[in-house]
């Protein structure tokens, strides 16, 4: 029971991270292509300025939760994905610094450099996150002691000895890039005004078609690479609600963006991300990290879970702390709600 609860609590942290940091990553990718003037760029960046750091906290809090609830998974996955995680860290560092410091520098050349770095690091991060999730779904060559080490690439095939990047995980990376860029565009339709808002709305259409195509391809590829992903769905047919939710939320994005209802379109995109991630987690459960070297080496829930007392105590403070955290988050978002107005104190 504790295992079930903590599995889904960690999943909630991941969904929270992707939905929230997702839109500011998407804004990072988009701002390179969408904005025309310095004022538009300032408005774009001001739309995420007060919140991006809090959004990134979901990654840290999620990592910490994973560490204490599933120490074996944390130890195995973090050391096994050593190289890509270090690259993710470097990208997170570059991104945070370039976003936050451009406003402290008036010199044009510095700003161009920092803006470029911000866009590039945002794009690469979405690709790495997508590829990371695809790596977990595909499985890794776990040794008998529960550890592994993956090179960045081998022969680009998802066989028994894959690399971080193969054709399957690259699809995952591209899917994340497109989904989060679209998510960011919808955020901009809520937060910006004028021509910028129109451009953001127009860019949604082509992104949407690509997203629908990539969603279908990734679903087919996942079933091909790991057929066991479907077992839970066939055992509990009611859970086919998840793929139906994916389709419905894709429809919602299209419809509400067409009808110029940006908040509803953005929420549809949140639901899309939620259903995609929840669907992936459900496809894995109760495995946490499948082994390409034989199912008996899978890292499963029962193998990785912390001691009972740790988890019981954790449930109390975690619940209390997250209620508080959601309180601050709602408060901050409500203080900065509405369109960005540069004349009113930079927001």
């Amino acid at each position, binding site marked *: 029971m504790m295992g079930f609860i903590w599995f889904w609590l960690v999943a909630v942290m991941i969904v929270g991270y992707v939905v929230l940091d997702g839109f500011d990553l998407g804004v990072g990718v988009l701002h390179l292509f969408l904005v025309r003037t310095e004022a538009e760029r300032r408005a774009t960046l001001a739309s995420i300025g007060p919140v991006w750091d809090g959004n990134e906290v979901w990654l840290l809090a999620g990592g910490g939760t994973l560490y204490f609830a599933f*120490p074996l998974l944390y130890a195995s996955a973090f050391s096994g994905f050593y190289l890509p995680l270090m690259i993710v860290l470097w990208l997170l560092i570059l991104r945070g610094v370039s976003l936050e410091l451009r406003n402290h520098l008036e010199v044009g050349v510095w700003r161009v450099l920092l803006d470029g770095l911000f866009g590039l690091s945002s794009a690469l991060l979405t690709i790495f996150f997508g590829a990371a999730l695809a790596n977990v779904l595909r499985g890794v060559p776990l040794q008998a002691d529960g550890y592994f080490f993956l090179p960045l690439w081998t022969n680009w095939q998802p066989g028994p000895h894959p690399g971080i990047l193969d054709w399957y995980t690259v699809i995952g990376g591209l899917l994340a890039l497109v989904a989060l860029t679209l998510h960011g565009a919808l955020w901009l339709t809520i937060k910006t005004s004028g021509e910028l808002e129109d451009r953001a709305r127009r860019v949604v259409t082509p992104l949407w078609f690509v997203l629908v195509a990539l969603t279908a391809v990734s679903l087919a590829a996942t079933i091909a690479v790991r057929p066991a992903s479907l077992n839970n769905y066939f055992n509990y047919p009611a859970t086919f609600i998840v793929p139906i939710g994916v389709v419905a939320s894709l429809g919602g994005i299209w419809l509400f963006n067409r009808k110029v209802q940006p908040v509803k379109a953005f929420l549809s995109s949140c639901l899309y991300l939620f259903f995609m991630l929840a669907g992936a987690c459900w496809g894995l459960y109760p495995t946490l990290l499948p082994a390409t070297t034989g199912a008996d080496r899978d890292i499963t829930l029962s193998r990785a879970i912390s001691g009972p007392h740790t988890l019981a105590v954790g449930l109390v403070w975690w619940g209390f702390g997250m209620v508080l955290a959601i309180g601050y988050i709602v408060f901050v978002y409500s203080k900065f709600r509405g369109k960005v107005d540069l004349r009113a104190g930079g927001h």
Partner: protein
Amino acid sequence: MTAELIHRLHFAFTITFHYLFPQLTMGLALLIVVLKSVALKTGSEQWDRAARFWGRIFAINFVFGVVTGIPMEFEFGTNWARFARLSGGVIGQPLAMEGVFSFFLESAFLGLFLYGEKRISKLMHWFSAVMVFVGSWVSGFFIIVTDAWMQHPVAYDRLPNGQFEVLSFWQLLLNPWALLQYAHNMTGAVITGSFVMAAVGAFYLLEGRLDEYGRVFLKVGVIAGLVASILIIFPTGDLHGKYVARNQPAAMAGMEGLFKTENGAGMVLIGQPNEDTGQIDNPIVVNDALSFLIYGTTKAEVKGLDQIPHDQWPTALPLLFYAYHIMAGLGTWFALLMIVSAFLLWRERLYTARWALWALLLSFPLPYIANTAGWMTAELGRQPWLIYGLMRTSEGYSNTVSASNGLFTLLGFMGLYLLLGILFTVLIYREISNGPEPKLPAVEAIQAD
């Protein structure tokens, strides 16, 4: 180079660089609350501007602290996987609690503090400053709890698979080691914050511009610096030292360079430990002082390294000795400088005493060195243990990550942090040069377009 050494250097390098930023933000957060409180009480626009100026410095430091802090949480898993696997049930808790209780709070209210001043009331803005302070100090507490459990493991049990589990949540949080270390460490952060503030004040007065701000910064910096420089020695440093001596005798013997057990042990002020001869070369010693400081009597026995099996000696003995002596020596200087400066402030002579202003200005890097040396003392003193008495450092690193891969990313971090360091220095220098006065409205308007 062995994998163990690379992984140790990896963590040591990244955390040493990281902690340059939080030690200032934690200290400054308190001082910004002081500035905002005076501004709120007196309605003074000058103190509000001073708070905004330090808010900008804080923001830059905060960003560098956040981005260099993320790797720290990852490295438990990436570089220290075998340790993470066994310890997650215990120290994973305070690390996750830091995220849940502190980072959400801090990031939310910092967003309000920096971006929201025109959207919220003055009282709410003051409250945001207080919450940023609370968030950063709570964050520090959870990190100290994590470290304290590695230094002095309490309230744990071992599961059949070898994993550690918490037996008492409150005993973990209220570990006596954690409380002493927290008091000492946070006082150290206030020293960094107040020395930096006083140094900027001294800089403005020596340059003969922005005098009115220079005086505010000096006043706040010197008063806070005086209080913190005394508290760092007594009681926090004194109590912490006594606790180390009783619970980690090997660490204390290494810090003091005490090779032989003595009744009435002396304290070496300066010298070079010689591991081959088991002596201190070129020593200057205060007789009986160590026994007195630890046990309150000049005749007490202090355990030397001769009573400790050689395989349990701190592995980097000379570095431990020097780190501790650098910290203690600088701590003495801080107290002297601040006592003199506070005296001059009280006699209303500080603002014109150029020699004192120069001393304050030139002393601003020293708290960074002292805080770093203090942490090196704690962590080198713990060696060869990763969890004191329970797990050796050699048993904890990720043995699937080769020395070569570790070196690859260590060099990557070194290059990246060199860039960050340069960027940081440029930015902070510009903020200090620009000063607290608002820019002309015309300039702001041009920037906005």
